[in-house]
């Protein structure tokens, strides 16, 4: 077997695609924003803000409809997010606006 399918994340070799960076960026963001030990530092970065950011990143690149079509609706069940539902709604409004801007103008969103 010549093709193992395994690659080091830092090496950026891809088993299925020839665009290494976007893929490993997704992997890295998924891990450094969603995973890892949560400890309250002295700087009060509201972790909820980071959770929201994760949502934003995902939604920025997949429309809500597309995400739901794909069965991605985890943010609806995230207790950290639902307690801030009001804030989230506001964020989503901003977000929709930004998606429109990006779709309209090509923007800076790495596509």
């Amino acid at each position, binding site marked *: *077997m010549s*093709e*193992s*399918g*395994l*690659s*080091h*994340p*830092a090496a950026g070799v*891809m*088993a*299925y*695609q020839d*665009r290494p960076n*976007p*893929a*490993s*960026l*997704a*992997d*890295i*963001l*998924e*891990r*450094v*924003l*969603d*995973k*890892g*030990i*949560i*400890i*309250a*530092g*002295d*700087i*009060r*970065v509201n*972790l909820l*803000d*980071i959770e929201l*950011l994760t949502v*934003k*990143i*995902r939604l920025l*690149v*997949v429309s809500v409809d597309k*995400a739901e079509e*794909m*069965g*991605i609706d*985890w943010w609806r069940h995230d207790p950290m997010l639902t307690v801030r539902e009001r804030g989230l709604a506001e964020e989503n409004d901003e977000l929709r606006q930004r998606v429109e801007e990006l779709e309209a103008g090509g923007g*800076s*969103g*790495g*596509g």
Partner: protein
Amino acid sequence: MAEQTAQQTTGAPAETPASRGRYLYAVSRGLDLDALGGLLGLGDADVEAVEVDGLVGLVSSVDLDEYGEEGLRHNLERLDWLETAARGHDAVVQAAAAVAPTAPMRLATVFRDDDGVRRTLAEQHDRISAVLDRVEGHEEWSVKVLTRTHDEPPTTPASSGAEYLRRRQEARQARDDDQRDAHVAAEQVHDALVGLAAASRRLPPQDPRLTGHAGTMVHNVAYLVPRDLSDAFAAAVGDLTGDHREVLIDARGPWPPYSFAILEEP
């Protein structure tokens, strides 16, 4: 800290200590800083160690204009800043995890000074130790299964409305079949791999624009694999890739054990 020093009364203050903070990347056990080979952290700052009772916190100085509350609130909204920070954070975590048991911190864990880091490592000592016990000698592997996308060949225009509808229905049917096949394949992939892993964790599917792939991701799972089973895991992935040509199997690693660095309830 209470004592004032006489010689600092002249001249302008060079730099207020409050403008710098300490960024905590990860906590390792038994890590020798030399093993990192002069690794630089965010903003090319030196990575330093803060030790508490066997735990080694990896820290570097960051500018609080950038990493303070206000700065972060602003910067976290910028994907270019976030990418740089995320990659810088990950680089330190990767380097540490390659040489010692390492528990990664979430992005942007920032303290005023080393005393703050020390206090937290002391408070959380047992819980962090438990995480290190769990991940020691293990690596995280990421395995994804995606549907293959069919490049629809340009066809001659449909000769009639009925022909057009028939083609559309066939295309939809093909997509449904692909999805079902992919879910079946994903289950088989998981069954084959989970036996080689100490733990596994399902992650949300990634969006296609970040992965750069148009197929639907039906499986995105992190596996915590004992290091001595890495070769067997790689071989199993290779076999699965050969056996399941109907889907794309993407396996990457080793990652530091991000997905398994979870503090248990005290």
